[in-house]
């Protein structure tokens, strides 16, 4: 199900080139439009589809599995914190799905350097960042006790 580009919608901005994890979305040097240089190495991860400001990239189904005439379109709206999928079957049947993608503002995660630094004792302990508080348990980080392991299987 590799990606392809609607050449009339693409304006050659390069957002897809910037994001593609496989590095296979390139700009054609003659036409100045994006294209998938290696469909076999496309993971259909939709990263480029979601990143395209012109909605110019689509993903086709495998010719040998997926019926012709269908479409799967996605709209990712980071400012609203949602992603919307529209699935059209070739008989005209449609399905719509909307899911949240984030519950906080983009950019709101603090750097660990802005948070209180670990103490001398923390450096000598086995805890990782934000533990034991972030474990939400009474007491401290569990420690391996040999006698508790070899009790057979669940």
């Amino acid at each position, binding site marked *: *199900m590799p990606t392809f580009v609607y050449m009339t919608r693409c304006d050659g901005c390069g957002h897809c080139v*910037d*994001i*593609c*994890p*496989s*590095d296979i979305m390139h700009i054609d040097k003659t036409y100045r439009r994006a294209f998938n240089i290696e469909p076999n*190495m*496309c*993971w*259909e*991860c939709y*990263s480029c589809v979601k990143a395209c400001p012109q909605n110019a990239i689509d993903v086709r189904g*495998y*010719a*040998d*599995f*997926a019926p012709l005439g269908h479409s799967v379109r996605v709209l*990712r709206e980071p400012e609203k914190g949602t*992603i919307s*999928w529209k*699935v059209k079957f070739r008989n005209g049947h449609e*399905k719509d*799905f909307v*899911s*949240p*993608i*984030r*519950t*906080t*503002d983009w*950019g*709101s*995660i*603090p*750097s*660990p*350097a802005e*948070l209180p*630094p*670990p103490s001398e004792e923390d*450096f000598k302990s086995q805890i*990782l*960042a*934000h*533990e*034991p508080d*972030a*474990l*939400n*348990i009474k007491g401290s*980080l*569990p420690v*391996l006790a040999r006698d*508790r*392991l070899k*009790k*057979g*299987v*669940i």
Partner: protein
Amino acid sequence: MGLFSRKKTHFVDADVLVIGGGMAGCGATYEARHWGRDLKIVCVEKANIERSGAVAQGLYAINCYMGMQWDENQPEDHVRYARNDLMGLVREDLGYDIARHVDATVHKFEEWGLPIMRDPKTGRYQREGKWQIMIHGESYKPIVAEAARKAATEVYNRIMVTHLLMDTKKKKRVAGAVGFNVRTGDFYVFRAKAVIVAAGGASHIYKPRSVGEGMGRTWYAPWSSASAYALPIEVGAKMTQMENRIVLTRFKDGYGPVGAYFLHLKTYTQNAYGEEYESRWYENTKALVGDYVDRHPVPTCLRNHAFLEEVKAGRGPIRMVTKEAFQDPHKETVGW
């Protein structure tokens, strides 16, 4: 004129060098900043950390969560589960260590903004199986990448690290890494006091038998080029837990892990004649491995053994039956 004669060489010095900017690399970068407030922490990634690694496309579940806060599972339960599922081939200390830290990590993800589904009755995280929790994970990677970018001193995207560098004076000490920019071909030399290899595994070494356009493809990220193995092996590192391999086939009309389908949507498998086949291979498997076949859950490799024997016996392909799974609209959303 040689191939690289017009390329530049860049030198980057760091205190901590993290190779790979997927979930593990982003986590290592964040953790390094927590403990080393004034250190120069550099993360190097061959794609763009915003969408890179095996979670680039998002995920619908976190496959390991203990739930220690509700006493759902304890780390030693997870070790027992893993020991059984991998038929004893497991480093229990490593499994325990991951299990005891995972809850804190998941709680941080939720605090950072990852939407985690909750069970409306109990208010706890929605379980998909004993270990898995359900999330709305489309932006899983962008959220974690944001934390890593805040924590790192510098992030280098589109640099493919090819080799680790050894210290010339101190024996057996890794002193950095070299790589090249996949776009410009420029050469990069990273010199660091500590190096963390958080690169990816290997896709497409063993190929599934999918035919047509899906030929030979797994659902696993095709860009996983085994750097996590090659980089340390070449400098003499001892590798562990290499006995277990997983080849992630694609299933027809769908594309992704089958965990939610089997666990949450309660789908099941049948052979080409619509028959349940696992029980047919019970005696055969028992003769091979003894009482592992009677354990609950049956180790994954033994269920796969029944699958392969059934195909060899000419009753394939094996089908996943989904028609009963999609009756509930919420479950249909999960399935899609």
